[in-house]
């Protein structure tokens, strides 16, 4: 009897302890998780800073001091570069460990290990796409490099020393929620992070869709609807540039025929809004007489932010700017002599080859009249809560076969190999290392020669008065239209003949016009002797920017900031008058009249309090959808014509057959489309008003949200009060926007300002997790001071000292 009285409560206790120590579905192990000493409560910091003040550090040569200022930007002072990079690794991990690991897991196709089988398709694509393959090659090159190798090792060791110091109590909250532990950092993870960026910025192409469209429309119609350039284009490198080099030529083969085959499924694509603005102004146009530079990369708006801001000081460097957690050095920033910023060089660097295998064994494929051997690579995927999955990827000399009958299958005949510059070994870290230490234009030029992918427009300005902009990266040397469509992988003349010589990449230095800018538009005009292609050049931000820069004189830092926050919707200004002209106010109901008046009186500024942008946004989306309904309603996966072509057709081609809406009996005219879209916009907005308690304003309507990387809503910030939209200089749309804004004036001493939509801490339990969002949305900036001596620093709230561990 006594035994039963014992065993009953004992089993309950045991069940409680075991049950609460394990994860149940989405619910974390509650005992561990709720423990106020070690569980999630231990991650509540608010304004407290829980870092250790004095750390005995393995592998350091000298003592390193880290001063955190009032927005938790670390100012790192080291006596040599090895210690500097080791500390960068440590400090970054201390603030952003979960993010660093999660992003590299995503790049490596390992998300299923954390969240289970839902991520398997994503993971398989990542590996088939060749990100891991490219990262492995790149990291070998970097590790073997006598300069970068040891720094990369130091960075990795710094991160690992932080990881080794962690108990369950100290783990970032996401590990506790998802119940897993960080693994050791490796150099490969840094490589994977760079490939993550390469994929984000240069991981898209439309070869398959173009091929589909070519088959649907024929060549002439395809060229009309999807031209390589637009009428009023305004390239990155001003049209005045003359090309004075001996061009390397590549002949277009006599009989080019593209195989009209394609994968049926929609391809995985990075966000087409990924883009950026940068510009640099010569001293002749500034108030100080010295150059200025501005940069704002537009990426998905996430928390923790993609950027981590640091000031790195050693006897060889004094650099300040935004870093990518997981990569060495400062990516966008300034030092005592120069400043630089990057935008994505929108250029197609991915081509697809249709592969014909000898037989089902896939051991050989046809190439140039012979059979070449494939390389078979087995990839194993660990899946949380399920058995491992094994995928077989075949490599050709082009690259990995991404699509075949086991992945997004079309049929057994559709095997497509990917050739992509991100697969090639490259040492982008060398560019960053050298740029951080650049003293003049020559140093900048040299640094760029190491940068391959993702190709970037590097804007530059220095204290000596030089400004420049290089469209920099590794670009395939192609014949006309090579790689625009899926190519026959068995023909040698379809392979890339080589690469555009680095010194023939388009650039400009100190132009007469006194400024240089880029905003993901077409890189050069038709006089540039090398074939270049991209499916969707930006066509609005760049023109607005250049119109402003052309007229501005005596430019101040405030002018630069105003431009970064400029809400002028150029596209709207180019089409809305046509739409309004065709509408008759007398035939409208009350709600329509209100909308019509708002649109008629609109100054085209997508300001946060305006209401017209809300109407226009819906009107335009609906109009676009109705105009291109033939493209939406087909069961094929095809892209739709870009905005410049769309506007051109609406304005100049009233007889275009696509204007008619297919599934109605009526034959619609453009004015019918306008009227329909207008009514539908008014309906949508009225509907929004009746289902939302908030006042109708542009910012409430577009509801800009900065989302946590694991999409946990409470760790995200919604309804940020900010204007702007895509194709506007202030490119803040619903989930996307300027992820870092920086303005640098190269006067003496240098003045620099920056802000980003997030915060330095990766901990949702910290005040510093999202404390910069408000300033960012208000268009405010923080001063960035790269004092060369620590005693000159202001507003220091915390100091950390790393001392070499006695050997």
């Amino acid at each position, binding site marked *: 009897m006594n035994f039963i009285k014992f065993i009953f409560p004992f089993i309950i*206790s045991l069940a409680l*302890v075991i049950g609460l120590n394990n994860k149940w579905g989405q619910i974390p192990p509650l005992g*561990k998780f709720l423990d106020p000493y070690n569980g999630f409560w231990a991650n509540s910091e608010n304004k407290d800073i829980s870092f250790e003040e004095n750390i005995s550090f393995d592998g350091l040569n000298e003592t390193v001091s880290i001063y955190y200022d009032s927005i938790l930007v670390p100012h790192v002072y080291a006596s040599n570069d090895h210690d500097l990079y080791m500390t960068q690794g440590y400090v970054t991990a201390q603030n952003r460990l979960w993010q660093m690991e999660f992003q590299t897991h995503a790049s490596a196709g390992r998300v299923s290990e954390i969240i289970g089988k839902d991520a398997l398709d994503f993971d398989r694509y990542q590996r088939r796409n060749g990100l891991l393959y490219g990262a492995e090659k790149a990291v070998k090159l970097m590790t073997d490099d006598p300069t970068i190798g040891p720094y990369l090792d130091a960075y990795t060791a710094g991160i690992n020393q932080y990881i080794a110091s962690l108990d*369950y109590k100290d783990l970032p909250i996401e590990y506790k929620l998802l119940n897993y532990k960080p693994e050791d950092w490796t150099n490969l993870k840094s490589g994977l992070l760079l490939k993550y960026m390469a994929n984000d910025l240069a991981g898209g192409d439309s070869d398959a869709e173009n091929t589909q469209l070519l088959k649907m429309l024929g060549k002439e119609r395809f060229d009309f609807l999807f031209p390589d350039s637009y009428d009023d284009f305004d390239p990155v490198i001003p049209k005045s540039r003359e090309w004075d080099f001996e061009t390397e030529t590549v002949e277009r083969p006599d009989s080019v025929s593209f195989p009209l085959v394609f994968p049926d499924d929609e391809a995985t694509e990075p966000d087409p809004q990924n883009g950026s603005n940068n510009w640099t102004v010569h001293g002749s146009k500034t108030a100080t007489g010295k150059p200025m530079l501005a940069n704002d990369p537009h990426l998905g708006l996430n928390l923790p932010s993609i950027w981590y801001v640091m000031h790195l000081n050693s006897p060889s460097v004094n650099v300040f700017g935004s870093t990518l957690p997981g990569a060495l050095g400062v990516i966008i920033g300034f030092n005592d002599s120069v400043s630089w910023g990057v935008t994505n060089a929108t250029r197609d660097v991915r081509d697809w080859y249709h592969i014909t295998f000898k037989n089902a064994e896939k051991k050989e494929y046809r190439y140039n009249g012979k059979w070449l051997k494939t390389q078979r690579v087995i990839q194993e995927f660990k899946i949380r809560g399920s058995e491992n999955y094994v995928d077989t990827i075949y490599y050709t000399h082009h690259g990995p076969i991404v699509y075949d009958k086991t992945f997004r299958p079309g049929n057994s005949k559709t095997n497509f190999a990917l050739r992509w510059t991100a697969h090639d070994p490259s040492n982008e870290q060398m560019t960053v290392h050298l740029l951080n230490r650049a003293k003049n234009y020559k140093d900048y030029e040299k640094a760029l020669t190491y940068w391959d992918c993702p190709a970037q427009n590097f804007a530059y300005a220095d204290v000596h008065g030089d400004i420049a902009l290089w469209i920099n990266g590794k670009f395939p040397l192609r014949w006309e239209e090579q790689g625009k469509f899926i190519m026959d992988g068995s023909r040698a003349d379809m392979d890339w003949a080589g690469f555009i010589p680095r010194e023939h990449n388009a650039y400009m230095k100190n132009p007469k016009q006194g400024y240089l800018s880029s905003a993901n538009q077409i890189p050069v005009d038709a006089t540039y002797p090398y074939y270049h292609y991209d499916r969707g050049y930006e066509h609005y931000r760049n023109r607005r920017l250049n119109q402003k820069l052309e007229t501005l004189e005596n430019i101040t830092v405030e002018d630069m900031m105003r431009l970064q926050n400029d809400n002028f919707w150029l596209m709207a200004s180019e089409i809305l008058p046509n739409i309004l002209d065709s509408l008759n106010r007398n035939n409208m109901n009350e709600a329509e009249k209100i909308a019509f008046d708002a649109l008629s009186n609109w100054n085209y500024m997508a300001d946060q309090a305006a209401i017209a942008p809300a109407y226009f946004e819906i009107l335009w989306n609906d109009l676009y959808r109705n105009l291109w309904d033939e493209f939406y309603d087909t069961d094929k996966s095809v892209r739709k014509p870009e905005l410049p072509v769309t506007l051109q057709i609406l304005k100049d081609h009233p007889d275009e057959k696509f204007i008619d809406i297919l599934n109605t009996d009526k034959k619609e005219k453009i004015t019918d489309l306008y009227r329909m879209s207008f009514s539908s916009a008014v309906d949508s907005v009225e509907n929004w008003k009746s289902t939302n308690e908030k006042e109708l304003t542009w910012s409430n309507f577009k509801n800009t949200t900065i989302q946590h990387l694991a999409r946990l809503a*409470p760790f995200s910030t919604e309804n940020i009060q900010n204007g702007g939209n895509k194709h506007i200089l202030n490119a803040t749309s619903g989930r996307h926007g300027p992820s870092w804004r920086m303005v640098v004036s190269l006067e003496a001493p240098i003045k620099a300002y920056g802000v980003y939509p997030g915060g330095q801490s990766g901990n*949702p339990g910290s005040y510093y997790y999202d404390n910069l969002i408000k300033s960012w949305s208000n268009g405010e900036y923080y001063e960035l001071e790269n004092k060369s001596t620590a005693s000159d620093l202001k507003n220091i709230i915390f100091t950390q000292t790393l001392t070499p561990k006695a050997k």
Partner: protein
Amino acid sequence: MRFIIRTIIIVIASHFSLLYFPWWSMAICAFFAGAIIDGKNLSTFFSGFLGLGFLWLIQSFIIHNDSAGILSNKIAALFSLSDGVYMVIITGVLAGLVGGFSTLSGFRFRKLFTRDKSRGVYR
């Protein structure tokens, strides 16, 4: 009196144990406290329940309060609750249950080795 002593032992031992060991170490503390100090079923259960329950409740409330709910409010939202203070309550109740049953098990464990009082082995 034994109730109070037992409860205090549970709170103090668990507090120090949690500083160095995983969360379930407090269940062991409660078990031993229940085994060492004699009592009745109900009083042992409640000294474990109240001891650990209040320990976690108070500790988490202090954090919730000091940090202005910066994290507890977010975690509460993840659990579809409107306020971080509910996390404080859940934390307390959960520790209470673990504490109550562990102490009771300890006490019943003790009883396995004690004869009836009439036999007079332990006095």
